[in-house]
């Protein structure tokens, strides 16, 4: 059972308090965009996800906690959370993810 850092509570909480909520950073098209979108583009938005191997940006919901949705980077190879960040913040860059990895390693070394 994971221990997940909730960026709103700013502490680690047990996985059972959370629910997975799908891949992150898929922005819903505006009404205007929706009307202009082809059926193909709309179906791509609706149904197609990357399901990547490695650093996966995904959403989690702290439903049995502060009730907030947030974003996370989880490595689908090691099945480890690299970082979490608040909803609305931009997709994390490679550099930011690398820094988080480094920071995690340092924290671990300290304990």
């Amino acid at each position: 059972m994971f221990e997940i850092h909730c960026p709103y509570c700013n502490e680690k909480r047990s996985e059972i308090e959370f629910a997975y909520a799908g891949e992150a950073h898929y922005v819903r098209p505006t009404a205007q965009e929706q009307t202009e979108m082809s059926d193909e583009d709309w179906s791509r938005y609706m149904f197609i996800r990357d399901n990547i191997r490695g650093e996966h940006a995904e959403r989690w919901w702290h439903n049995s906690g502060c009730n907030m949705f947030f974003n996370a980077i989880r490595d689908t190879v090691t099945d480890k959370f690299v970082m979490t960040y608040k909803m609305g913040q931009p997709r994390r860059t490679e550099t930011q993810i690398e820094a988080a990895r480094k920071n995690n390693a340092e924290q671990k070394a300290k304990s």
Partner: protein
Amino acid sequence: MSFDQAIDIPEIFDADDLRVTLLKEKARYSLRLKSQDVTAIKKASGLKLPAKIMGSTRTKDIICAKLGPDEWIVIADPTQKVKLDKTLAKVSKEFTCSITEISHRNVGFEISGSEAAQLINVGCPMDLSLDKFPVGKAVRTLFESASILLIRTDEHSFHLECWRSFGPYLRDFFARVISTR
């Protein structure tokens, strides 16, 4: 039959090292406020709304706990209800916010005694050691499959609430733990 929380508390819930009591009637409100208004609302309402998430304040009659970044719960003695209804209606009018009465949504238990944390940890994954969960800390979390609100009111005392229909489940769970220990 009038006010009915549908939970009976057995005698075994009153041991030297562990007491579980059912809280009597309370007035409860869920407050959703914009952060820029909190100070003004505190002033307007007189409520001691904690600033930090997972924080709580307690006076003789009123507990205020911050459960989410913009969410507070107010749990008050029923004698405060008329006044609070009025105050909060005013706040509702003056500020962009959501105030919803949830007095009967929850039932509450007080769990106290040297074994109190142990009992809660039977089903709750939080670390309840005093330094990780100090007096005043308030969280929404889980007791097995029931969502609970947990506030530490003292070193050996907790205020625990759940939605009404989960109350008997928690009572039965506590009864099993206490009777088989």
